[in-house]
């Protein structure tokens, strides 16, 4: 193991140890927040695979998040599934939806790709509303405590919930760290830098982008399914444009194309909005200002700046 690899493992492992220990010391309010942040950060990790590493800016990831959430939620509510197969149903739904959208959207590039993903995600959101008889539309539906017993573990209990969120986040973080350091991930980065050149090195770039989008969508769906199960609520708002913009915001803030960026971005943004929602109902104002300021002054994000200044090899 090279010295660089050791440092990288120490940094990312250190964060996981810190998060694991945090549950014993944090006050209840922040304990609950951090569980939520870890699930949202998992969503952002999924988004980052496609946007940060492959260079494809999607404005439609809420479709995948919602596919996971509704695959799980409808499976429990109407399919009579128990949580474990319901989670699996959510993940599979995400994989299928992201695969289908990838086949269509990857025929386009750049701005057209952004608009196409936006439009199909919007169609998905409207579809949730349209089938209000099953989905309860905007109002959504609540999963009862009895429906949230995973292998006899009550996921509505804060301690269990934190541990479940931590497990999901740790899995996603490790997967993303491994992926981007593996040859497959290096090809994705190269596609981001210059797709034409990658093709002329003998790689099937379309297949790589397709795989990246399915992996990204599947992780997002896993986060969506977990979010619904852990917090006991499934609602259409999670499929709205806002939930496509949020992971973009987190990743941009934390640092696109960095493994830790999604978590750092989600953490900062969550508390920024949390603090400002005490002051005003217009808390999305903060999101808007941060988006503009980031694009103008810090396109690299927080971890990206760190990498630029101090640690060139940070994945």
């Amino acid at each position, binding site marked *: 193991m090279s010295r660089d690899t050791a440092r990288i493992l120490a940094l990312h492992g250190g964060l996981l140890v810190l998060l694991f220990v945090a549950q014993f010391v944090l006050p209840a309010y922040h304990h609950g927040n951090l569980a939520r942040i870890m699930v949202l950060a998992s969503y952002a990790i999924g988004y980052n695979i496609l946007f940060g590493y492959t260079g494809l800016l999607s404005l439609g990831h809420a479709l995948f998040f919602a596919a996971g959430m509704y695959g799980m939620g409808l499976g429990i509510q109407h399919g009579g599934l128990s949580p474990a197969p319901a989670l699996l149903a959510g993940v599979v739904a995400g994989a299928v939806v992201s695969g289908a959208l990838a086949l269509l959207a990857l025929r386009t590039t750049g701005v057209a790709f952004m608009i196409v993903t936006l439009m199909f995600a919007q169609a998905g959101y409207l579809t949730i509303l349209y089938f209000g008889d099953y989905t309860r539309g905007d109002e959504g539906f609540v999963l009862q405590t009895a429906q949230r017993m995973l292998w006899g573990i009550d996921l509505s209990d804060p301690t269990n919930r934190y541990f479940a969120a931590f497990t999901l986040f740790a899995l996603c973080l490790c997967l993303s760290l491994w992926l981007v350091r593996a040859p497959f991930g*290096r*090809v994705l980065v190269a596609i981001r*830098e*210059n797709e034409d*050149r990658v093709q002329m*090195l*003998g790689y099937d770039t379309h297949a790589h982008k397709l795989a990246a989008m399915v992996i990204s969508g599947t992780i997002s769906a896993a986060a969506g399914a977990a979010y619904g199960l852990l917090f006991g609520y499934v609602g259409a708002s999670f499929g709205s444009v806002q939930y496509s913009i949020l992971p973009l915001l987190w990743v941009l803030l934390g640092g696109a194309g960095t493994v830790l960026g999604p978590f750092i971005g989600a953490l900062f943004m969550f508390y920024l909005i949390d603090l400002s929602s005490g002051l005003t109902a217009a808390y999305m104002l903060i999101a808007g200002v941060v988006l503009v300021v980031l694009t103008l002054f810090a396109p690299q994000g927080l971890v990206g700046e760190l990498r630029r200044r101090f640690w060139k090899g940070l994945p």
Partner: protein
Amino acid sequence: MTVLLSTRGLTKRFDGLLAVSDVDLDLTAGDVHALIGPNGAGKTTLVGMICGRIAPTAGSVTFDGRDITTLPAHKRIGLGMAYTFQITSVFAGLSVRENVALAARGQPVQGDQVDRAVCAALDKVGLSDRAQEVAGNLSYGHQRLLEIAMGLAQAPRLLILDEPTQGLSDGEIARFTALIEGLRGHTTVLLIEHNMRVVWEVADRVTVLNFGEVLAEGTPEDIHENRAVQAAYLGTG
């Protein structure tokens, strides 16, 4: 003498403009074959059709006895072609080593072989001591050499070089010609080149393209003497 690559009637039309017209080209295995011609003669378009970046309007491309006219670019690379870009297009954000490793991994080789291919390629172009640098920080000339190293790391049967010596210093050009000499016999090279000294020095065969058509083909000596070529090209170049 086996023919590694041949084109028959290769033609490309852009919106009515005839860029390449009815080109028959045969590359003998192991040869260094130079493709020359004035700017806008259609050299890059022709090579683009050979390696699959541009779809031809008409005609066919055969590689190693197999018709590859409709094969996508990455599959042609898989068959043993390599193409280095005219406009430097290394991965600016990645290290020099990673650039070459990407090229090596594009081929069906594994593990240690990748490392060995990377080291050998960097060594041949003289960039070994810069392996850890970020490619975007290299000088222009070094980026051109990195581009060539990427082509070498692919261990191709046919190496297509699009104006490789552009912007290189005299010393670097000498290194480049030595490198091509080293490939002669086992790697076929198709070389688009403006620098005539390089062409006369390394080429076994020369094809001259003018207005999208083959104006002449032969040994460097034949071409050197050819009046039509002199009129069209050398006289103005």
